[in-house]
C-alpha cells in the first residue's frame, strides 16, 4: 500500500476506526501520495487532503457520478482497460451526462472546482487506490454507493494491479469470517447457495441430514416477523441488537414479542434484558479459533486462560445440538476447521498446522496453495470475466432534514471505544479519558443555538430523544452533528431511522434528521 501515488478515501475515518490501517495510508502520504477525501466530517485525513470533498450526508452517488462525468468529458478515462475488461460503458456515459459539476455542486454542496480536481488527481494517477468505509455502506443506498465507487475505479482502470483497487475497511474483528462461514440466510458456508441442490447434497452428505432449500430470514426480517408473532424463538450469539441496531425502540419491541430468547454474551447487555436464558460467553483470550480480517487473512486466536464460565461458545453449541438430538462433537476447534476446509472451497487449504508457520489469505483452495493477496488480476468474478458498469441515480438519504428536524445526525466510532462499549467501557483507563458520549457540533451551529462546549443538550429525532454534552468542533460541518453508539446511557440508536439498504438490509446509520434543544 505505501506504493500508491493517489489515495481516494471515501466515507472512512481510519485514524479513529482503523488506526493500524491508517499507518499504511500515512506512510504513503509521507512518501508524497496525493489524497482525496470524501467525507461530510472534517476528519484527520480530511484536514490533510489535497481535496476534501465535503459532501452532504447521503449524496455519495451524485458526487461519484459527477467525478465520472468530468473524467469522461475530459477524456481522462482508461480506454484500453474499459475496452478489454468491462462492458456497459455507454449506459454509464448516458447516465452520468445528467451529473455535470454544477448540478452535483447543488446536490452535494461540494464546489465544482473540487470535483474537477478530485477527478483529475484520481484519474491521472498511475497507482490509485480507493479505500472506503461504513460511510459508504451504512446508507439506504449502501450497495449502490459501493457500486458507484466500482464504476469510478473501472473507468480509470485502477484495479487488479498491486497498490490499486478498492479496499473496504470492515468494522469488526471477524465480520469477514462470520460472513464467510455461513451464518447467512441465503448461503451455506463459503457463499454457497442453499438453493443449489448440488451444494446442498455435499453438505447433506457431510452432516447426515437433509437441508432446507428455502432461503431463510435476515436478522431484520426475523425481528419484523417476531412483532407479527410469526417468529417465536431466537438464539443470539455475542451480539447486542438492542443497542447497536438502529431504531432501538422497535428492536426492543421485537425482542419482547419473542416466546423464547437465548442470549450468549460475556457481559449483561441491553439485549440480555429481554432474554429467557443468558449463557456466559468466553472472551477471545479463553479459546482457540481463527478470525478472518478485512483482507481475507485467516489468523489464529489462541487460548491464554481458561474460560471464565468453564466453557467456550463452540462447546456450548455442540452440547445444545446434541441435547436437541443431533450429535455434534469436536475435541478441539482445529477439527472444526478441518471440516470447514472439506466443505468450503475458499478455505480448502486452511489448517491449524499451516497457520502456525504461514499467513494465508483466501481463496486458498488446496493444501499446497499459497493463498491469494490480490483479487481480479486477470478476470472478474462474473460470467465472461468482464466487469459491468452499473448506471446509478442519486436518491439521497431516507430521511431528509426539514424545519422541525434541521440537522443531519451522523453516527460512527471514536478511536478509544468500540461498538456497544461493553468491552472498552470496562477498561478503567479508557473510561478515565473518554467517560461519556459527546455530541460533535460545528462552531457556527453552536453559536446559533447558544450552546457552549460541555453544555448539556437534547438531541431529538422522530423516534426518540438523547441527552448528551456538546463538543463544539470543526470536525462537524454546519448542519451536521455526530454521535457514537458506545454508551447505552446516551444511545444514538434511539434516534437513527428505520431506512435500510434493500439489498443488504444494512441500516442507514449515517444520516437521520434531528433537532437540538438546550
Amino acid at each position, binding site marked *: 500500500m505505501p506504493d500508491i501515488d493517489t489515495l481516494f478515501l471515501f466515507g472512512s475515518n481510519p485514524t479513529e476506526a482503523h488506526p493500524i490501517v491508517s499507518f499504511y495510508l500515512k506512510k504513503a502520504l509521507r512518501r508524497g501520495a496525493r489524497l482525496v477525501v470524501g467525507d461530510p466530517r472534517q476528519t484527520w485525513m480530511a484536514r490533510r487532503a489535497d481535496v476534501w470533498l465535503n459532501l452532504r450526508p447521503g449524496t455519495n452517488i451524485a458526487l461519484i457520478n459527477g467525478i465520472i462525468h468530468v473524467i469522461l468529458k475530459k477524456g481522462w478515462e482508461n480506454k484500453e482497460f474499459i475496452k478489454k475488461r468491462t462492458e456497459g460503458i455507454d449506459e454509464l456515459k448516458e447516465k452520468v451526462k445528467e451529473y455535470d459539476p454544477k448540478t452535483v455542486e447543488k446536490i452535494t454542496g461540494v464546489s465544482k472546482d473540487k470535483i474537477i480536481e478530485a477527478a483529475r488527481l484520481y484519474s491521472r494517477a498511475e497507482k490509485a487506490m480507493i479505500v472506503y468505509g461504513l460511510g459508504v455502506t451504512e446508507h439506504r443506498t449502501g450497495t449502490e454507493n459501493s457500486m458507484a465507487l466500482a464504476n469510478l475505479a473501472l473507468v480509470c482502470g485502477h484495479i487488479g494491479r498491486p497498490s490499486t483497487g478498492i479496499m473496504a475497511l470492515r468494522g469488526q474483528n471477524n465480520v469477514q469470517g462470520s460472513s464467510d462461514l455461513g451464518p447467512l440466510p441465503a448461503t451455506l458456508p463459503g457463499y454457497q447457495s442453499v438453493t443449489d441442490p448440488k451444494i446442498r447434497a455435499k453438505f447433506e452428505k457431510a452432516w447426515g441430514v437433509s437441508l432446507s432449500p428455502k432461503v431463510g430470514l435476515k436478522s431484520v426480517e426475523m425481528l419484523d416477523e417476531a412483532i407479527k408473532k410469526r417468529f417465536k*424463538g431466537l438464539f443470539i450469539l455475542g451480539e447486542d441488537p438492542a443497542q447497536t441496531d438502529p431504531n432501538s425502540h422497535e428492536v426492543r419491541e421485537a425482542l419482547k414479542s419473542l416466546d423464547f430468547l437465548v442470549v450468549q454474551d460475556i457481559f449483561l447487555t441491553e439485549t440480555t434484558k429481554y432474554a429467557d436464558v443468558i449463557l456466559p460467553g468466553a472472551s477471545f483470550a479463553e479459546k482457540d479459533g481463527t478470525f478472518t480480517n478485512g483482507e481475507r487473512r485467516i489468523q489464529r486466536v489462541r487460548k491464554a486462560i481458561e474460560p471464565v464460565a468453564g466453557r467456550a461458545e463452540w462447546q456450548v453449541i455442540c452440547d445444545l445440538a446434541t441435547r436437541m438430538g443431533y450429535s455434534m462433537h469436536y475435541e478441539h476447534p482445529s477439527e472444526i476447521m478441518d471440516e470447514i476446509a472439506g466443505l468450503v472451497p475458499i478455505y480448502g487449504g486452511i489448517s491449524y498446522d499451516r497457520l502456525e508457520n504461514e499467513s494465508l489469505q483466501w481463496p486458498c483452495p488446496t493444501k499446497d496453495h499459497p493463498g491469494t493477496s490480490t483479487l481480479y488480476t486477470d478476470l472478474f468474478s462474473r460470467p465472461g470475466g468482464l466487469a459491468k458498469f452499473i448506471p446509478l441515480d442519486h436518491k439521497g438519504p431516507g430521511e431528509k432534514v426539514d424545519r422541525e428536524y434541521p440537522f443531519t445526525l451522523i453516527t460512527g466510532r471514536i478511536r478509544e471505544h468500540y461498538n456497544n462499549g461493553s468491552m472498552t467501557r470496562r477498561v478503567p483507563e479508557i473510561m478515565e479519558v473518554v467517560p461519556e458520549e459527546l455530541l460533535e457540533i460545528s462552531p457556527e451551529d453552536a453559536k446559533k443555538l447558544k450552546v457552549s462546549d460541555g453544555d448539556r443538550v437534547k438531541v431529538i429525532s422522530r423516534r426518540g430523544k438523547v441527552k448528551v454534552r456538546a463538543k463544539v468542533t470543526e470536525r462537524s460541518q454546519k448542519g451536521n452533528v455526530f454521535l457514537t453508539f458506545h454508551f447505552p446511557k446516551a444511545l444514538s440508536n434511539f434516534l437513527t431511522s428505520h431506512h435500510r439498504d434493500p439489498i443488504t438490509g444494512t441500516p442507514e446509520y449515517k444520516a437521520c434528521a434531528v433537532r437540538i434543544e438546550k
Partner: protein
Amino acid sequence: MPDEKLRITINGKVVLCSRDETILDAAKKAEVRIPTLCYDERLEPYGGCRLCIVEIKDFPKPVPACTTRVKDKMVISTETDEVRRMRKNILALLLSNHPNDCMRCEATGNCALQTLSYEYEVDGTRFAGETWNLPIRNDNPFITYDPNKCILCGRCVRICNDVVMAGTIELTGRGFDSRPDTSFGRPRSLDNCEFCGQCVSTCPTGALIDRKAVGRGRAYEMTKVKTTCPYCGTGCNFYLNVKDGEVVKVTSDFEAPVNHGNLCIKGRYGYDFIHSQERITSPIIKKGGQYVESTWDEALDLVAQRLGEILQEYGPSSVGAFSSARCTNEENFLLSKLVRTVFKSNNVDCCARV
C-alpha cells in the same frame, strides 16, 4: 522483487543483497547479530546510537550498519576488538547518568541497555558524573515516563511523529538537558496524545512504561500467547502476557504480517474487560420474572426443551439465530450448522449487515 546481485561478505559469510539494502539488512540475512539501540524495523534508519558500527575492509573508519548501504564485494567485520572497544565506550557513556535501578525497574529482563551492558561488561562507574534527577511523570493513566532512564535514541519521538503522526512528543532542550517531552511539558491527555503506547513499544529502556502493568510481574515470568486482536477488522496480532492465569499486559508481535508490532489504544490497553468483575460467570435463567443463576445442565436442558417445543408447534420457520462477528470462524460455522441441522431452516444471520 529487487534483484539480489551484490556479493557481500560478513564475518566470512557470503550473502547476496540488492542495492537498496543496508549492512544491517545484510547481517540479518547472514544471521549475524549486530547490536542496536536506536533501530526499530518500523522506523527509518537513524544512525543515532552508533552501537551498530562495523568495520569495512579498506574503509578508513568504522561506519554504522543501519544507515550504510551495501556495495558489491564489501567485506564487513562486526566483532573486531576495535568496534567492541568503541561499543563499550558508548555504553559506558550512556550509563554515566543512568539510574542504577535495574532491581525495581519495570523493564528489567526486557531492556536492550541492560542486555548490552551485561554482554559488554559495562557499568556506570567509569564516567560517573552529574545525573538528571528529574521527577517521574505519572500524569496519565496509560504511560509512565521516567526521563532519567532515557538514552535519547529518539525512537519514541520518531514512531510518534513518523508512524502514528500524532505529534505528541518531540526532542526538547539542548545538550545535557535534551530529552523527549510533550509540548510545553504538558501532561499527556487526549488533546495531545492518542494513548496508543507505540512509544512504549519501541523504548529500549525503562523510560517509557505501560503503567497498567507496573508491579504485575517480570518479563521472564510471563507466558506469552500470540493471538489476534478482538476489536476492529484490521487483524493485528499481539502477545497476551499471562501470569498466574491472568492477562496482565499486551506486548507487540514484531513479526505480525499486518501490524508489524504496531497497535492502537484498544489493542494495547483494551484488555481489562477479560477479567472484569462484571463478566457473566454462570448461566442465568428467568424464573417467575426473576433472573437466577443456574448450572450449564439446567440452562441447556431448558433451551433445548423450549426451542424444541416451539419448533414442534410452529415449525422450522419460527426459530432462528443471530451469529456474531465477535466470535471465531469455527463458532460461526457451528452456529450455522446448528440452525441448519437442528432447527431445520436457514434462519441464521450475522451482524455483518448492521
